[in-house]
């Protein structure tokens, strides 16, 4: 907690959204943007109907279909009747309550955390919420953005506010410069490996330091996206010229005098020099290398040159037991070098890594190469806009020539709510965010990696970094 007038970035954004504040109550915060998708909203709309309530600010609410949508055959009816119904219910709820909705096939449709930023709906200094834990992604713009449950979705729809206890503040300082071939994904995996899946609980993380400043907006979104995997509901990065040039000219971004007004405001969104964080974690970028998870939570991660750890190495009995159980589920033995582990499938996609830069990174590795024989490889762009951009750059042709399937946008195999799933025992190198048991399909084995490592792994058939390719 900061004393005096000096404040951290998150405190500044928090303070400017306080609608009411009373002793013994959580602050009531105004919500500038409420993103909605098909999975966590139906029961919230039902709640509004039951209570006879309306949506207070439909114009501050934007919906899209992402979790359930198939990634092939968009001209066909959705085969799974339960998914089809959920998609229909989203459309009808949005129509009833006057909310803009981008359904399957719409040019603006995509993963909710991809479309907010690309449409310029996510801007610095805003509060953004969504019934999805990866809402932390939007913090890359210096927005205070966090995931909420369905009861809270209903609350925000009805009131455009959300009661929240003030979180603690954590600085994650990434000093130095990243070595070539080490990406934002490796940075955030290393951070989670360091602080654990619960280390960020109760905190808003601010990512700072030269290595963070050097990241593109896409990279910053990847880092903030996985804040929740360290337990932090929100992760933030102070906006700067990289942010402003990404935002300028996007469909919903301000223009003219409004742009100038916004810009001068946004430049104040930095942590004051005198401000204190409740906790600080430091990482040396120069020491990092590409990372791969070996277990069933994202903190179970090693450098790609490392090996599957021996559970007995862990002092904490709970960690040790979790490691042993993870190895059993993952079908791995302690001491096996990561480079020797063969994969069946490679998935490039998800709100963590399906932006244009991620696709460029993977395509750059795949150019002139081909996926390993028998390996299944798919790339699922985060949105129709990303897909179109990639196609205009010819990236789709690179992927297809390399043996990848080029799919339609959606959450896809990140959480296996659509037909893209792993089967029992199938091992996948995935650019997504969660390696939980069964996350990509019942019995499936997920290893989280960067797009570059995913591409190199697809070529070799075993975990590999691009600089190891022949």
């Amino acid at each position, binding site marked *: 907690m900061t004393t005096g007038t000096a404040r951290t970035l998150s405190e500044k954004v928090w303070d400017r959204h306080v609608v009411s504040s009373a002793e*013994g109550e*959580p602050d*009531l915060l*105004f919500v*500038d*943007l409420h993103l909605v998708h098909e*999975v*966590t909203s*139906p*029961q919230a709309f039902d709640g509004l109907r039951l209570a006879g309530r309306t949506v207070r600010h*439909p*114009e501050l*609410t*934007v919906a899209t279909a992402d979790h*359930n949508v198939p990634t092939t055959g968009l001209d066909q009816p959705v085969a*799974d009747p*339960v*998914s089809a119904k*959920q998609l229909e219910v989203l459309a009808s709820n949005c129509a009833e309550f006057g909310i*803009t909705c981008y359904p399957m096939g719409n040019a603006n449709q995509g993963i909710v955390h991809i479309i907010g930023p690309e449409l310029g*709906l996510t801007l610095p200094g*805003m509060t953004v919420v969504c019934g*999805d*834990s990866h809402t932390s992604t939007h913090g890359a713009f210096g927005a205070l953005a966090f*995931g*909420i*449950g*369905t*009861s*809270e979705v209903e609350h925000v729809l009805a009131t*455009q*506010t959300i*009661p929240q*206890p003030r979180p603690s503040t954590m600085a994650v300082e990434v000093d130095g410069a990243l070595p070539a071939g080490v990406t934002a994904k490796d940075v955030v995996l290393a951070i989670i490996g360091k602080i*654990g*899946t*619960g280390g960020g*609980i*109760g905190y808003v993380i601010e990512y700072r330091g030269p290595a963070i400043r050097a990241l593109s907006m896409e990279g910053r979104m990847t880092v903030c996206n996985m804040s929740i995997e360290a*337990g932090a*509901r929100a992760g933030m990065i102070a906006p700067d010229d990289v942010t402003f040039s990404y935002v300028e000219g996007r*469909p*919903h*971004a301000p*223009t003219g005098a*409004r742009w100038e*007004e*916004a810009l001068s405001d946004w430049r104040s969104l930095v942590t004051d020099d005198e401000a204190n964080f409740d906790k600080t974690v430091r990482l040396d970028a120069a020491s990092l290398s590409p990372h791969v998870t070996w277990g069933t*939570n994202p903190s179970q991660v090693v450098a790609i040159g490392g090996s599957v750890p021996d559970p007995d190495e862990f002092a904490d009995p*709970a*960690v040790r*037991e979790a490691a042993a159980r993870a190895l059993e589920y993952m079908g791995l033995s302690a001491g096996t070098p990561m480079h020797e582990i063969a994969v069946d499938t490679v998935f490039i996609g998800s709100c963590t890594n399906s932006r244009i830069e991620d696709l460029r990174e993977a395509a750059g590795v795949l150019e002139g190469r081909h996926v390993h024989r028998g390996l299944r490889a798919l790339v699922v762009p985060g949105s129709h806009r990303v897909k179109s951009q990639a196609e205009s750059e010819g990236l789709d042709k690179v992927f297809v020539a390399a043996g990848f399937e080029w799919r339609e946008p959606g959450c896809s195999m990140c*959480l*296996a*709510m659509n037909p893209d799933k792993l089967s029992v025992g199938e091992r996948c190198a995935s650019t997504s965010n*969660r390696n*939980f*048991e*069964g996350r990509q399909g*019942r019995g499936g084995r997920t290893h989280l990696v960067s797009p570059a490592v995913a591409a190199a792994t697809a070529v070799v058939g075993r975990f590999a970094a691009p600089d190891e390719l022949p």
Partner: protein
Amino acid sequence: MRPVQVVTGRAVPLDRSDVDTDQIIPSDWLKRVERTGFGAGLFSEWRDDRNFVLNAPEFAGATILVAGPNFSTGSSREHAVWALMDYGFEAVVAPRFGDIFRINSTKQGLLPVQVEPDLGRRLLDAVSADPSLELTIDVARGTIEAPAAGLAGTFPLDEFTRERLLNGWDDIGLTMRHEDDIATYEGTRSGWMPTSAVRR
């Protein structure tokens, strides 16, 4: 939400750390548009193993789940809370909870009882050793007790949430007491803030 004052009952020991919400309710179940019927999906992949603790007859009918650290991290799915409640749980005890789950729980009246790691360990051991052990969780006092095992402790709950739980108050109703403040705030918002109206 129904008021919750005291929960008394037997407990199930789920002696695992990092039980994420994907395990509590796998994503296949999230396609449903209803709020009820999720109990059948609770830990559904683990329950297929007949040795899983929830399948043990001696723990049938328990109303309290005692779990390891970092329970309910991961996804924001409130379905995890609905599934636990639909199955019959009224409280979950763990040394640490995922933030979103914890908030979701208190919106529905499922008690998230965060205990010191040492007490969490002792409760897991005591419940495993004696499935008939009765636990009592008192919301007003913020206490958890298992007298037969000689165990007792406290858990944190902010006063606002405590009052909400004790009285079963509707969150939206509480917020709308501040409607004037909301309207005042709305009048101060910056002109550059975006809306869903398409500008180009």
